[in-house]
Every structure is written in structure tokens, then in C-alpha cells.
């Protein structure tokens, strides 16, 4: 009787068990359908509906032109406010930007004097404030130039930006993939850990342990079943939700991505099982889950730029499979990269997975003894 056969049979059992857990099933379906849609359509592009207001003390054609240059979807329709409202409105966080167009602005420009415009920025809104400030000043300068009918410079060098892999900078493109990755990680850790907890609670784990089975066979079956289930839903959400409903063009090979996904799931479910062996109750497992998932989610480069983290943290996060997976999924899905490009990440994920699997194996039997 081969080991493969027993793992195969145990995996089937795990799948059946999971299939009967309606609540978990619901969570999985929600996470890979509606949640993806929700996150992708939230409008994750940074400059969108930016709340802006103007104090127009000039009331000239020029001031009107400047104000009219701000429109949806990047900006909310600008509001005109009084000078003495500035502080209250800024303090209340109603507007990220308030522009003060001074008196005699148009006149000064015509007389070749340089008018001073004040741009108030709520700097606590980091991302919007940073990009928006540059954007707003360019728009204002352009309007001034257009009014004056002079080119901004006599040197006519023009910078033509083009965005590769995402020409219109659609936030939903990577936003949706990132949500898929986050949920893949969260659910696989939860599912694998919970599968172990459930057997412990129902006492069936003892059954398995007295059978002629290796511990590794028991754990591998849990890992394989988690991989199968989550991978299926990842494929579903990629093809149906991301490509179908959200209309995100995936240029790369979805098959290669799924192959990497399987390896990623091996690593994350090993982490889940490892956590299940070192905690003794669900509340403890729950705390641990947040402790592990949150940093993996926030710091793996999917939500915030990886390069700007402190170097020590960058090295630390290199031990997380998610960092590698975020990198390789960007490469595969959007840049159309092949195995030749992403193999290093893949190897890293494999070793991280093996490391946690080995550890889980080591702690598994010990934890079974400790709980009785």
C-alpha cells in the first residue's frame, strides 16, 4: 500500500468534510467573488474624487477658468468657500486641498507681475496630498499659460509618459489581484489550521494517529485539500470575476499563475498547520492569525510600495511567501513574464513552504500529546 494512495484517500476525506461545512463554504465563496469585486471597484486609483475647494477673491475670467479646470473623476466638483471658513473646513478634514486665488490675480498676470497662489494641503492624507499637490500646481500653471497664450518654455522638450502594462492606470487591475492574494493567504491559513483544530475537537485525530499512517501523510492530506479548494476558487475569481466581470486584461499565462498559486498555497497552509500545532485553543489561534496575516497582507508589497520600507524590514519580509508571490503575480499576470523571470521567487516560496512544513511535522506529534 503506497503512501500516495493513503494521502489520496485522506485528501478525499478532507474535501468531503469541507464540503459539508456550510459556513466556511460561504466565507470562501464570498471572499473570492463579492469581496474581490468590492475591493476592485472601491476606486483604489489615488487621485479620484479628490475633495477640493477654492477661495476666489479675484472673481475674474482667469479664476473661473482655473476653477473649471478641476473636474470629475479626478476631483470632486470644486466648492467655492469664504476665506474665514478655511481653518474650520481644513480642521474638519472636509477638503484635502483649498486653493486661494488672490485679488487682482488676472490683472497682475496681464501686467506681467507674478501672482501668488496659496495651496493649502491636508498633509495627513499622505498619498492623496503628495500626488495631488503636484498635479494641482501643474493644472494651474497650464491655465495661466493658456490664458497668457505663451508656451511654458522656449525649449520645446516634451515628456511623453506611457504606462506599461496598465496604460490607463486602472487601480482595479492590481487592486483585484491583490485582494485575491490577500484572501488566498487568509483563508488557506485559516482552513488548514481549522482542519487540524476540528479533528482535535472531535477526537478523530486520535483515530488517525493509531492507524498505520505517517504524520506527514495526515498533514499532507490537509495541505493538498486546502490547495485544491482554494486554487479552484482562485481560478474562478481570476477568470470569472477579475477577467470576466471587472474586465481586467490578464496578459500573462493564467496557468503559470495557478501553478505558482499551488506552491504558494503549500507554503501558507503549512504555516496554518504549524500555527494549529503550537496553539492550544481557538482564541489563541485567532490572535496568532491576526498577528501573522496582517503584516503579511500590508507589507508584502501589494498595498504599499515595498522599496520604501526600512531595509531590515525588507529583508524580514523576504522570508514571507507573500512578498514573493506578489512579485511574481505582478510579473506573470501584467507583464507577461514566464518561468525564466519568476523562478527565483518560486524557489523561495518552495523553501519557505518546506521550512514550515518540516516545523509543523516536528511540533505535530508533540502537540497531540500535550493536549491530552
Amino acid at each position, binding site marked *: 500500500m503506497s503512501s500516495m494512495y*493513503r494521502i489520496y484517500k*485522506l485528501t478525499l*476525506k478532507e474535501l468531503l*468534510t469541507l464540503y*459539508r461545512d456550510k459556513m*466556511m463554504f460561504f*466565507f470562501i465563496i464570498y471572499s473570492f467573488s463579492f469581496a474581490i469585486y*468590492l*475591493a476592485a471597484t*472601491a476606486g*483604489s486609483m489615488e487621485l479620484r474624487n479628490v475633495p477640493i475647494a477654492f477661495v476666489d477673491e479675484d472673481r475674474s475670467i482667469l479664476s473661473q477658468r482655473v476653477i473649471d479646470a478641476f473636474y470629475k473623476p479626478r476631483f470632486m466638483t470644486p466648492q467655492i468657500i469664504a476665506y474665514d471658513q478655511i481653518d474650520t473646513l481644513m*480642521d*474638519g478634514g472636509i477638503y484635502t486641498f483649498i486653493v486661494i486665488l488672490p485679488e487682482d490675480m488676472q490683472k497682475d498676470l496681464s501686467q506681467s507681475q*507674478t501672482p501668488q*497662489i496659496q495651496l493649502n494641503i491636508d*498633509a495627513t492624507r*499622505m*498619498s*492623496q*496630498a*503628495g500626488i495631488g499637490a*503636484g498635479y494641482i500646481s501643474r493644472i*494651474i500653471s497650464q491655465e495661466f499659460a493658456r490664458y497668457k497664450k505663451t508656451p*511654458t*518654455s522656449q525649449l*520645446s*522638450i*516634451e*515628456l511623453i509618459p*506611457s504606462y*506599461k*502594462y*496598465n496604460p490607463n*492606470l486602472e487601480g482595479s*487591475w492590481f487592486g483585484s489581484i491583490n485582494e485575491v492574494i490577500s484572501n488566498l493567504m*487568509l*483563508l488557506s491559513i*485559516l482552513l488548514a489550521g*481549522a482542519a487540524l*483544530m*476540528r479533528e482535535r475537537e472531535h477526537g*478523530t485525530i*486520535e*483515530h488517525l494517529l*493509531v492507524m*498505520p499512517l505517517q504524520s506527514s501523510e495526515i498533514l499532507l492530506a490537509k495541505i493538498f485539500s486546502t490547495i485544491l479548494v482554494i486554487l479552484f476558487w482562485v481560478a474562478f475569481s481570476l477568470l470569472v470575476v477579475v477577467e470576466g466581470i471587472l474586465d481586467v486584461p490578464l496578459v500573462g499565462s493564467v496557468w503559470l499563475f495557478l501553478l505558482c498559486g499551488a506552491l504558494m498555497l503549500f507554503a501558507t497552509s503549512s504555516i496554518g498547520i504549524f500555527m494549529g500545532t503550537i496553539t492550544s485553543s481557538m*482564541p489563541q489561534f*485567532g*490572535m496568532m*492569525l*491576526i498577528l501573522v496575516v*496582517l*503584516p503579511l497582507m*500590508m507589507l508584502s508589497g501589494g*498595498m504599499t*510600495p515595498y522599496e520604501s*520600507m*526600512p531595509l531590515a*524590514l525588507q529583508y524580514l519580509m523576504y522570508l514571507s511567501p507573500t512578498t514573493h508571490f506578489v512579485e511574481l503575480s505582478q510579473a506573470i499576470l501584467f507583464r507577461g513574464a514566464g518561468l525564466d523571470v519568476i523562478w527565483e521567487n518560486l524557489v523561495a516560496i518552495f523553501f519557505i513552504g518546506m521550512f514550515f512544513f518540516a516545523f509543523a511535522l516536528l511540533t505535530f506529534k508533540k502537540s497531540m500529546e500535550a493536549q*491530552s
Partner: protein
Amino acid sequence: MKSVVKIESLFYKYKNTQALEDISLEIPLGATVGVIGPDGVGKSTLLALIAGVKKIQEGSLEVFEGDISLESFRQNVRSRVAYMPQGLGKNLYMSLSIYENLLFFARLFGLSKEQREKRIELLLKVTGLYEFQNRSVGKLSGGMKQKLGLCCALIHDPELLILDEPTTGVDPLSRREFWELIDKIKGVQKNMSVIVATAYMQEAQLFDYTIAMDEGKILSFTTPKELLSKTDSKDIDAAFIALLPEVKRLKHNGLQEIQKSIQKDEAIAIEARHLTMKFGDFIAVDDVSFSIKQGEIFGFLGSNGCGKTTTMKMLTGLLEPSAGEVDLFGKTIKENSLQMRKDVGYMTQSFSLYNELSILQNLRLHAELYGVASGQKEQRVEEVLERFSLKQYSTSLAGDLPLGIKQRLSLAVAVIHKPKMLILDEPTSGVDPISRDGFWQLLLDLAHNDGVTIFISTHFMNEGERCDRISLMHQGKVLASDTPDVLIASKQKENLEEAFIEYLSEAIEKKESHKGEIFALEKTSVQIQEGFLLTRFGGYAIRESLELLRDPVRLVFALLGMVILMFVMGYGISMDVEDLKFSVLDNDKSPQSREYVEFISGSRYFLEQEELQSYAQMEELMRRGEISIAIEIPPDFGRDIHKGLDVEVGAWIDGTMSFRAETIHGYLLGLHTSYLQSKLYGEAPVLVDIQMRYRYNQDFKSLYAIVPAVIPMLLIFIPSILMALSVVREKELGSITNFYATPVTRLEFMLGKQLPYVVISMVSFFGLLLLAVFVFGVPIKGDLLLLTFGAFLYVFATTGLGFLMSVFTKTQIAALGGTAIATLLPTVSFSGMQDPVSSLDGVAYFIGNIFPATYFINISRGIFSKDIGFSGHSFDLFALFLAALCIAALSLLTLKKQEQ
């Protein structure tokens, strides 16, 4: 005669089983009534309905002549009724001491401080628990837990005592003492009515009336004497069988003695030498030795927690003994080879099968895993189905089966691979007498015809008499070991139960006596106060806090976890886009182009990489993610500039992450514009001077925006998960019954459970503040008091969210998954942590606007960065207050004070 309980045509249905069918019943005031019958016939359901902890589906039920289905009446009658649920100590708290448990119950019934102290002391003395009052419940023996359970039930001096199988799994001596205690109490409280369910049929003889139940129906309601004479039986077991419908009875034809067909060979199957198992300083099994011959049925008798299960686990290799050794068929267990496991069949306590698999699937799975050759597999499964009469159920799920059939399935699973030895851990507890006899028939058959060695544990004494040899166990020690006849004879008793009690009393007298003192129980009058009662609220708050304090791992995880996360995320999350890998494809290589490139690459944001040689190389490096930006200078760049021609410089930006790409674009444009201006300085007038005023964060550092936003993040995940799990845990472990069965109100329960977690969260909050100010160096410019107030409202809302989640989930896994999924996405993406809520669209915008984290992030960022007083934050504070209130109201509306 007045009646205490009056039931008319009561029905109760679970998903697909009818638990109670047309029950009508009237129990006279002051009577002691025993409800007998095996597990799963509706005893517990009936008792729970009478106690008002389960919701009535159909029919009418009056207690003390009031309708128990009315909530107002239930609330009033609570002070007169006591309910002790099934399962030893199931409604007790293991990490709390005896005294603390009693205090909790006393508070729930609103007893004043004096009343509490007096009553607890009295009860402890009566039950003989007085000197152990500081011992934690987890360390008590079954008998002591049972006595404590009774104390908790009697704390408010009830007039109706409802006990659901109070003596199951307790040693016979404790059982006898328990009934003596009830008698004593009844002697003082003449009017007290007692309703008891029991699986030990013999105990029914002690009661005024006996209700025999089967399959949700009442078979008879009469005095024990009449029951015996009516059925013409000599004991209640037999009487019960006589009451059963004919179809069932026909299957039963007593136990057939099977002569051993195999010549007893004297080979030793199991040999245990000086087995000892220690868990910490607790000795579970103490120097136990025995040897069992092949084909013998060897019984282990004793109460729950006496070390039976631990011994069995050592035999199967699940546990490694602290000392001593075991030989199975002449080989030591330490070599625990896979081959050895194939010789053993193990049946765990409570028939742990895969409930979600069918009988056939269960059998096949085990056959496959035990390595039954695939050619023989189907045949073997077929054989077993036949032998154990399971054929008709083969496709039903194991979870849906009645207990008796589950038990047969468990045995079938244990023998599927034809083991030479069977280890059965309490295989018959809770099973009706007929199934039990049938089960023993199978065991005898296996042992005597197939020569299988059987090692069985049980707490039924009459089953012990069926074994070839037995060991009597108590507190990890073997009291005596021999054939049943010899044991009975040596104590000159009539049966094994009497003999065991004799052995027990000898063993215990050597140590300490648990006997209570003689006492005078006086009447305590407890009135149920309406409205919010601080005592009851305090009961839950204090108990929850104690439990939390005694689970330091959870506490440390919660507190330290937040600090670690704050560190990692505070430093890690950054909106600054820096160190971007940048490369140039210079097709001109003129002095002009070099000047332009140098200007751009001099920026602190860019890390210049080696120059590109071709367009294809650029494509490739970008695809590999090795560069994020490439500047392409066209040929004749320098010449064309000179000629005053229009020149276009291409900038290729990796657009995968749109936020990053947009920032890069901003940097490039800025650099490009200043390059042009630097070239023209003085020649062209500057049209407009735009002065940027970065408010609240002059240096425009990420840290100042991130740190105040990480605090709200941490204060939602951990508090809400802790809260949700703490409530669902009570549901899973069974102590939720205390909420159903006592006069504590929904509000008191919710706030009582919430308070400790609010306090912990506030402690973490202050810790995070210190970290923010002194480690991260982010100063607080606004009003600290206001921030604290906001944090308080916020953690009240977040723990409330966890509570709300717990109302809808039944298992801890679901609660954990649900809370994580419901809080992670909205907090991270929709609450203004990165993008302001106003920039969101659609559903996300809506969620962002009702999610409490949005408002606390506003408050936290606001107060950290500006000092604008209360009025500046009044809207956010009000929104938080409203959110907390709505969540609490929603919880209260959906929380059920009865089991559904």
C-alpha cells in the same frame, strides 16, 4: 393536589428528528421524579424545555402555574427554578476556583454580599467542599465537580430543581453520596420538587415517580414499585425493556453465552509494567501493571478522570508513558511500528467518527487507511456491514445516526482490518440497554470465536461482571484486579457495585473524607430585581476578567501582539515612493542628452541602473521587474534642440501598481519642468508662484500619518476577535446555559462580557500611545483626553462588533473566520487609511461611511496632528457614539435568551 409542571401535547423537532412527540404530563408539587431512558430519547430536551432554556416549538408548558413561553414570566420564575445541564461541570468554569464559581452564580441571581457569603459557606460545608474552596475546578475529580454543580444550582434556594444526568460517569461511591445529599436537602426543603434525568436505570428506584421515555414518547409515568409490578420485572433495566414496543423487544433475547471455540492459548497479548503518566505535577496514572492473555476480555472499571483513558492512550502509543513500559504481543510499544498498529483496533470515547461521512464512506476510508488489500476491501466492508447489522443505514451520514448505531459503527470501524486486539474506551456509555446487550454479544463473539483480545473500559458495573477479568481503578491507581466473582466474594457483597463501593471507601478513608457536616439549611429569600442590576452585570464582568487573567497566553498574545504589530506596521507601511530603479536608453549620446539625464537621475527618489543598450533590453528588464522607469532619449536630441525643433522624450513607467506609477509620473514631471526652468532662468517670466502649505504635517512624513492610523487598525482586529470567540466558546463548551437559565438580562450579559475586553483594549491603547510618542516620535498636538474618550467609544464599538458576530455563529472557527473577513477589508481599504473615504465609489463608499474605523482614524489623525478642541471632532465622536449604539442595539435585538 397542586402541580409544579403541567405539560400538554408538547412537540419538539430538531432538523430531521422528532425529539419529543405529543408529551402530556403533570408533576405534583414536592415530588421527586426520575426520567429514565437511554441517550437521545428526548430526556434532555424535555428538561431544558421545562427549565425554560430551550424555546418551545409546539404545545403548552406551565411551571408553577405560569406559561414558561412568556419571557416576562420566565424572568420572574428564575428565582424559583434551578437547572443543572448534562455533562459533568459543563456549566462550570475550569480555570476558576470552587469559591469563584459559586460567587459567579450567586451574583447572577442578584444575591447581596451578606447573602452570598452566608449561602456559599453553608453549601460548601454541606457538601464537604469547604476545605477545597480555592482549588480550581479543572483539577477536581468527577464527584467533586458534580457536587459543585449541585451547589451552584442550589445557590438561590430554588423550589424546583432540574438535574440532567447529574451522576453519569461518576464513581458509584460519589453517586451514592450525591443521592444522600439530595435526600438531606429535601429533608429540610419539604416543598422542593426535583426532576432528574438519569441513564442509570437502577437509580430510578430512589424516586417518588419514574418517567420512562423512548423515541420522544413517554412509555410510563408511575411509581417505581408499580413499574416493577406492572411489568413483572425484578429490576428497572428489565422493566424498561418490557415497556418497549414489541418490534424492538423482539431483537432482544438476552445475552447468549458463547463457549470459547478456540482453545485458550496462554500467550500474553498485553503486558503493562509499572505504567505511570504525569502531566505536570498531576499524576494521571500511578504505577499500573497488568497482563492480559490472548482472547481474554479485560475490563477497566472506574469513574471519569480516574486514568482509564490515559492508560488506553499509552497502550495505543498515543501517549508515551512517563515511566514503565508496555509489551504488545511480546514487542515493546516504543518500537511503535506501523505493522504493530495494524494489529490493534481502537475505539475512542464518544465514538469519534467522521460525522460528515456516510457509514459506507467511513468503513471504506478506514479499510483503505489500514491497508486492507483493494481486492478484499469491498468484501470486507460487506462482511462487516452484515455482521454488525448496519446494511440498512449504509448511506446515511454518521452524524445523523442514533447513538446505539453509532456505537456499532465505531466497533465495525475498529475491526475492519481484523485486528488481533481491540482497545475500547467506554464504548457503551449513554447507549440503551438493548443496544448494550447487542454490543456485548458482538464482543463475546469476537473474543471467543475469533480469539480477539479485548481491553474495555466502562463505568457500568454490570458490564464489569461480563468481563473475564477486571481492574478497579480510582485516581490513577488500581484498587484490585481479578475475576469479578473473586472480587465480589472477597468483600462478601452481592454484586460488583457494592464491592467496588467497599473498595473505594477503604481507599478514600486512608486519605481524606469528602463527607459533609451535619447542617441546618435555612431559607434564603431571593427576589428577582427588574431592570439593570449591577450585581448580575458584575458577575459576568468579574468572571470573564478572572478567566482572562488565568489564560496568560491569550493575554500576552493580545497585548504583546499589538505592540509587535505596531512596530512592524508603523515602520513598514509607507506612502513614500523612493529608491525607484531607473534606467536610460540614450539614443543620442550628445552632451545635451547627458545633461538632461544627469538632471533627472540626480533625484533622491531614483536609483540609476546601468544604461540600456536597446529597446528590447528595456522591455526585458521591465518585464523582469528590474527597473520601474525608463527614459528614452530620441536620436538627434541635441541637434534638434539646437535647431529649436520639437523634441519628445519618452518615459516608460511600470503601471502595475497604479498609485506608484502615478507618483513616479509626478516626480518625473516635476524634474522635467525644473530642468526646463533651470535652462531658461531669467529669460522667461514665471507666470505664477504657487506656495504649498502642508498643514498638520510640515515635513510631510509618512510616519505622522501612518502611526495614528495603525492604532485604530489594531484596536479593531484583536478586540473584536477576542470578544467574538469568548462568547462562541461558551456556546461550544456549554456554559452559555448559565445565561439562559439565570435571571441575568441580555444587556447585563453583553456589557458584562464586553467590559474586560474594553479594559484590555484601553490598556493596549495607552501602550500604543506611549509607543507612538516615545518610540516613533510622533507627538500628540491635540487633546489627549478627547482622544481617550474617542478610543473608548471606538473599542466599545469594535468589541460590540465581535459580540454581534458571535450572535450569528455557532462554532469558534466560523466566528474567527467571519470576524476576520468582516473587519479586515473594510478597515484596510475602506476607512480612509490610505485613500480618504470621499474618494471611494459604490458599495465601498457606503461601507466606509458606516464603518466605525473611519471615524476613529479621523479622530486619531486629527488629534495627533492638530489641536482644534472638542468642536472640531464633535461630528466624528458623535458618529462613533452612534455606531457603538447601533451595534449594541442590533446585538441586543438578535441575541436570544433561549436555545433555539
